[in-house]
Structure formats: structure tokens, C-alpha cells
């Protein structure tokens, strides 16, 4: 009798442990609801920019107009901090019940979000949208994965060469017209002003370094047979890497300081008057104007390897996408078109300086505001984009390219060895 009780108890315990174990698999959210309601609340997450008020005014206008035109619809806009956006958006994908219907997202994240199953395919609606015919091709590429469209481009961001007019005048320097001349001018500035970097460069400033690779005809990776393959160790890419990493050193930007710098550090150095030149974006204008360099600088497109050419820039920027889990798909797509439409982009340019993604709106903007002209010229000369594959997110997070630049800049490895290792790591990420 006693034995029986004991056995039963043990069996019960084992059975319970079994159920526990069985029920404890890590969670994965399901496909979500596929309703398409025509009223209710549309929830939108946008990025909170530095000095966000003007953006809020523009967006509020769009939202109120949308509510007026659609009975029983409310638009609820939230601004999420840029720093923690990755966690927030991951959270939204994991928990469809509390996720928004529309999100703003950085265009390098497109492929990753699509793989995660977070964004809805809006190819059909995008194709029917008349305004979309004027969308510039790189911007369209930045919402496209495997031929399908997952959102609408909101604005583009592009980098060009900022230089100090006063320093150039003092030294009698000409505005450089090739990358070689940029390097020569940088050395000259450093030699004459030892407290200044000639051209502020950063080992962790991937988007500032890429134009050097592209200007020499190199590519990060190339697509073949449905898959990306790293070409960062090709002869041309290595030429560009060498051109960039030669700028680290006592003659321009000492490796001990500059190897660790990222994009913001170089902009900060330029704004504080500690650099003669910097590669910075149209979106950095406010930061530069807030510093000592205000009024003493000008911007030209970053020149290419040959005279008269422009180094292809990285086409950064943000998109607006509809979440797959949205229960208001039709309304959400309509609102997406409003938020990323020509009228809103024009207003956002006036309010925030965001460069429009429609070529005609952008040309008009360049006419109205001379500051953006070099950036528009850079865009018109053709831009490049990072490989549109989820592997890129891993390469980016794994700091593969910054590690490569930093190793070469610090003299720890040669260009060949560092580039080969980076290519291997990239291929590994592409293969997954």
C-alpha cells in the first residue's frame, strides 16, 4: 500500500515535470489576425528627432485631415526615441496585440524586418500609387526585398564634404576635386594647424568610409545566384580601403584618437572647429551650426577618384511601413501614402530639412534652399545602398567593417589580411 502510494506520487511528479518541460518551449508569436477593419484607432510610431516639434506639427496636420476624411477613425501618433528603437520595434513584432499599425524605420533595417515577418508586403498598393512614379530608384530599392515592396520611402539622407572656408582661404587652398586632392589638402591643413585634423575620419564611421570604396569602383558585396557574396576584398575595394585608412596618422588624424571615432564624433570635431574638413550629412547641418564652425564652412559633393566625378554616397534615410499584424490594413496603407506623399515630404523638408525621396519635389527643394544643392547633386550622381539582406543587420551589429578599418588604421594588420577576414565574416552572415 505504502509502496503503491509512493510509486503513484513519483509517477505524478514525473508526469508533472514532463508537462512542465513540454509547455516551456520558448515563445514564438503566431501569424496574427488578418482582419481589415474600416474604423477604429490607427496607431503610428515615428522617430523622435532632435528638435521634434516642427515634425509633430506637420504630422498632426496630416493626421487631422485623415480623420476628417474617414469617419470613425482616430490616428494616434507616438514618437519613439531613436536610441531604443530596435528594442521597441522588436517588441512590436513579438506582441502583435500591442503593436502599432504603421512604423517609421531606418532603411538599412528593411531586409531584417522583412525576414522577421514584421512588415506587410504592399507591392500592389505601391504600384498603383501615382506619386510613386517619381520616387527615385535608390529610395525604391531601400523599401524593396526580393522584388517586393515593404513600405514607402519618407526621406533620404546623404553625406557630402563639409570644409572650412576660412581655413582654405588662409592657406590658399583650392576646393578639392578628387579624393587625392582631399587627402593632400587634409595633410596641408594638419601641417599648418597642428591642433586641427585635416579631414576628420573615424574607424567606426562606416558610412563615411564607404564612398571611398565605391569611388574606386569597389563594392561591399555582389548578388549572384540569389545570394550575396562579399567583394570587400576585391582589388578595387582594397584600393578604396587603403585610400581611407591612409588618412589615419599623425599627418591628418592620429590613429590613437581617430580609430575609435564614429560618425557623430567626426561631425562634432568639425563643428567644434577641430577639423578642416569632414564627411557629414545634410541632417548634420544643425549640429554644425551650433558649433564654432558656424558661418565659416561650405559644402561640396565628395569628389570621386577622377577629376569631375562624385564619389557615390550611401543613400540613408527612413521609410514608413505597415505592420503585417495590423488589423486595419487598407486604412494603414492609405495613411502611409499620406504620410510619405509629396505634400507631406515637402512640408517635412521645410520644417525639418528632410530631403524628399521624389525627384521632382527634391529638385524644387534644391532651388528654394541653396544649402541642399550639393546633397541633391550627390544624389543625382548616383548613390549606393547596403546589401538588401537580413545578413547585413548581423554584419552591422557585429562591427565587421569598423573592425577592419580600425585594424588597418592602427597598423595591426595590412589591408589584404583585414579585408579578407571581413569578407569571410560577411559571407558567413550572408549564408545564414
Amino acid at each position, binding site marked *: 500500500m505504502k509502496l503503491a502510494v509512493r510509486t503513484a*506520487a513519483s509517477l505524478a511528479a514525473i508526469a508533472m515535470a514532463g508537462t512542465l*518541460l513540454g509547455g*516551456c*518551449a*520558448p*515563445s*514564438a*508569436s*503566431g*501569424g*496574427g489576425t488578418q482582419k481589415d477593419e474600416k474604423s477604429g484607432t490607427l496607431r503610428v510610431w515615428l522617430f523622435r528627432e532632435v528638435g521634434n516639434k516642427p515634425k509633430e506639427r506637420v504630422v498632426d496636420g496630416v493626421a487631422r485631415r485623415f480623420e476628417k476624411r474617414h469617419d470613425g477613425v482616430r490616428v494616434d501618433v507616438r514618437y519613439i526615441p531613436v536610441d531604443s528603437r530596435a528594442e521597441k520595434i*522588436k517588441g512590436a*513584432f*513579438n506582441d502583435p496585440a500591442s503593436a502599432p499599425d504603421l512604423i517609421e524605420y531606418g532603411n538599412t533595417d528593411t531586409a*531584417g524586418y*522583412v*525576414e*522577421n*515577418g*514584421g512588415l506587410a508586403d504592399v507591392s500592389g498598393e505601391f504600384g498603383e500609387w501615382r506619386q510613386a512614379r517619381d520616387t527615385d530608384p535608390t529610395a525604391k530599392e531601400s523599401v524593396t526585398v526580393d522584388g517586393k515592396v515593404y513600405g514607402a520611402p519618407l526621406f533620404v539622407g546623404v553625406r557630402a564634404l563639409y570644409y572650412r572656408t576660412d581655413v582654405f582661404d588662409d592657406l590658399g587652398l583650392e576646393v578639392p576635386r578628387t579624393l587625392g586632392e582631399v587627402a593632400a589638402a587634409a595633410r596641408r591643413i594638419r601641417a599648418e594647424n597642428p591642433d586641427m585634423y585635416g579631414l576628420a575620419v573615424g*574607424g567606426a564611421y562606416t558610412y563615411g568610409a564607404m564612398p571611398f570604396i565605391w569611388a574606386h569602383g569597389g563594392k561591399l558585396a555582389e548578388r549572384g545566384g540569389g545570394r550575396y557574396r562579399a567583394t570587400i576584398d576585391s582589388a578595387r575595394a582594397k584600393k578604396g580601403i587603403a585610400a581611407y585608412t591612409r588618412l589615419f596618422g599623425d599627418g591628418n588624424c592620429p*590613429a*590613437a*584618437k581617430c*580609430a*575609435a571615432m564614429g560618425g557623430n564624433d567626426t561631425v562634432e570635431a568639425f563643428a567644434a572647429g577641430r577639423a578642416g574638413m569632414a564627411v557629414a550629412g545634410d541632417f548634420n547641418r544643425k549640429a554644425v551650426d551650433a558649433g564654432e564652425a558656424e558661418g565659416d564652412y561650405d559644402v561640396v559633393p565628395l569628389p570621386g577618384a577622377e577629376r569631375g566625378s562624385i564619389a557615390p554616397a550611401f543613400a540613408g534615410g527612413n521609410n514608413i511601413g505597415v505592420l503585417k499584424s495590423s488589423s486595419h490594413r487598407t486604412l494603414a496603407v492609405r495613411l502611409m501614402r499620406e504620410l510619405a506623399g509629396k505634400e507631406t515630404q515637402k512640408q517635412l523638408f521645410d520644417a525639418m530639412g528632410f530631403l524628399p525621396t521624389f525627384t521632382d519635389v527634391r529638385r524644387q527643394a534644391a532651388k528654394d534652399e541653396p544649402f541642399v544643392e550639393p546633397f541633391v547633386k550627390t544624389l543625382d550622381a548616383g548613390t549606393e545602398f547596403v546589401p538588401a539582406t*537580413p545578413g547585413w*543587420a*548581423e554584419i552591422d*551589429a*557585429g*562591427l565587421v567593417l*569598423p*573592425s*577592419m578599418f*580600425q*585594424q588597418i588604421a*592602427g597598423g*595591426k594588420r595590412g589591408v589584404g589580411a583585414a579585408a579578407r577576414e571581413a569578407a569571410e565574416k560577411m559571407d558567413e552572415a550572408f549564408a545564414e
Partner: protein
Amino acid sequence: MSLPLSAPRPAPAEPARRRVNSPVRQGSWTPWLYLAPALTVLAGLLVYPVYQLGLISLLQYTQAQVSGGEPVTFQGLGNYAGLFSDRQFWEVLSATVLFAAACVLGTLTVGCALAVLLTRVRAVPRLALMLSALGAWATPAVTGSTVWVFLFDPDSGPVNRVLGLGDFSWTYGRMSAFTLVLLEVVWCSFPLVMVTVYAGIRAVPAEVLEAAALDGASQWRTWRSVLTPMLRPILLVVTIQSVIWDFKVFTQIYVMTDGGGIAGQNLVLNVYAYQKAFASSQYGLGAAIGVVMLLILLGVTLVYLRLLRRKGEVL
């Protein structure tokens, strides 16, 4: 010197006691019944997370699986195979072991030396030393790290100015960056050692120390031959604790070397796991690194306990 250096062994338990027919004997489930609430809480807080960690480490589990873009698949030891064939993992592991060892050594040396010093100084300096140590202890790791980076800043840091180092960048070289972090880790973890050992020394009977002094033992000799044996249990606890802490160091490396240093030269296992698990959303791989860390630390602790038992001392 003739002092009993090891504690007297406890007399063997009387065999008679075991045969006493206590009421507990009859229902051998009763103790478990009483223990059940505690065990349930323990299982929930300790066993379940570790179980989940182990399970995730066997799966292909990235953001795509979490948010339902792709199905979760069982990988067996795939994550571990990938990890062990990654050269960077071995580099990071050896750097972590060496760095943790140096930190433990530094922390114990500084902590013990200051504990002895505390017993030798008057009330006012003792209070000052205690307060400053407690200040270091109470400082949150992120704050402490940030302040240290400021102090050692190449352009505006006071340390370089005082030492006349010009614009030497501490975080540029691998060794100097590790040294800087090591100093910070020692600074924020010696107070625990110091306070614990100080309490231990206070509990040592005064006559023992007096006898040593009468025998003409030097300060060092007293520490080595009298205090160390008597404080062994305390020293073992703080050592194990330091090993675990310093092996798992994260904040200091993450903040001071900007997420692992130039080209990842200052990565330690925990930051590496973070990079894999959260920055690039490979939760499966990150969990595998976690399991490896867990096993290493368990191993170290078990070996330590083993050594303890062999010497006849109980923790």
C-alpha cells in the same frame, strides 16, 4: 612560533543518534513537504531560467523565430559547434580568463592590504578610509566607469596632465585599455573584500595576535602564518565571489571601451555574448555562450569546494 594552525576536526557523529526512532522517520515525505514551498520558489527562480537557457541554446532562435517570421527549428549542438569553431570565441575566452584572474588578484591584494591597514590606524583615518571605500562601493558601475573614462581622457583628463602623459590615449592600445578597466574594476570591488576581511580580522582573538607579536613576527609573517589560516573560510568566500564577478564583468568593458574596444580587442565573454544575443539577435548562439560561462563558473566553484572539503574545512 607554535600555534595550532588548523581548526580542530569535529568529532565523528555518534552512530547511536541515527537510530533514534523519531516521528520524522515514519513519514519520510514530511521533510519534503516542509521544504516544498522553498523548493518551488528555488526551482522557479533558478532551475527554470537555466533550463530555458539550455533549451534555447539548442535551437535556431533569432528575431525571425521570435516574431514568427520563420519556424523554430531544433539544431542539436549546432550553436555550440559554430561557437567552438569561431576563432574569435577562443581569443575572447582566453582574454576573459586572464583579465578575470588579474582582477581577482588585484582586488584581493588591495582589499586585504587595506583591511590590515584599517586595523593599524586610528579612528579618524579609519573612518576616512571606510567612507571612501564605501563611496566607491556605492557608486553604480555605469557612473564609475564614465567618471574613470573622464579622468583618463586624452584631451581633458586630469590624470594625463598630472602624470605628464600628454594626449596618450588609454583606450587605444589593448593592454592599456585592459589596464584602465582593471583599475576601475579593482576600485569598485575591493571594498567588499576589505570590509569582509576587516570583520574577520576583528574576530581573531587578540591574544593570538599578541602572541605572534611577542614571538617577534613581522607584519607580513603574522598575515601569512596567523591571519591567513584563520581567515581561510572568509578568504575563500570572497575569492569565489570575486572570480564569479570578474569573470562576468560587463558594464566596465562596455562603457569604458565603447562596447569592446577598437576592432573588438577588449571583448570579454559577457560583452561578446551580448553582441551576439542582443545586438545581432542570435538568441540561440547567445544562450550557448551563456551555458559555456555557466559551466566554467560551476566548474571553478566545484573545484574550489572540493579543495575546501579535502582540507577538512566547511564553508
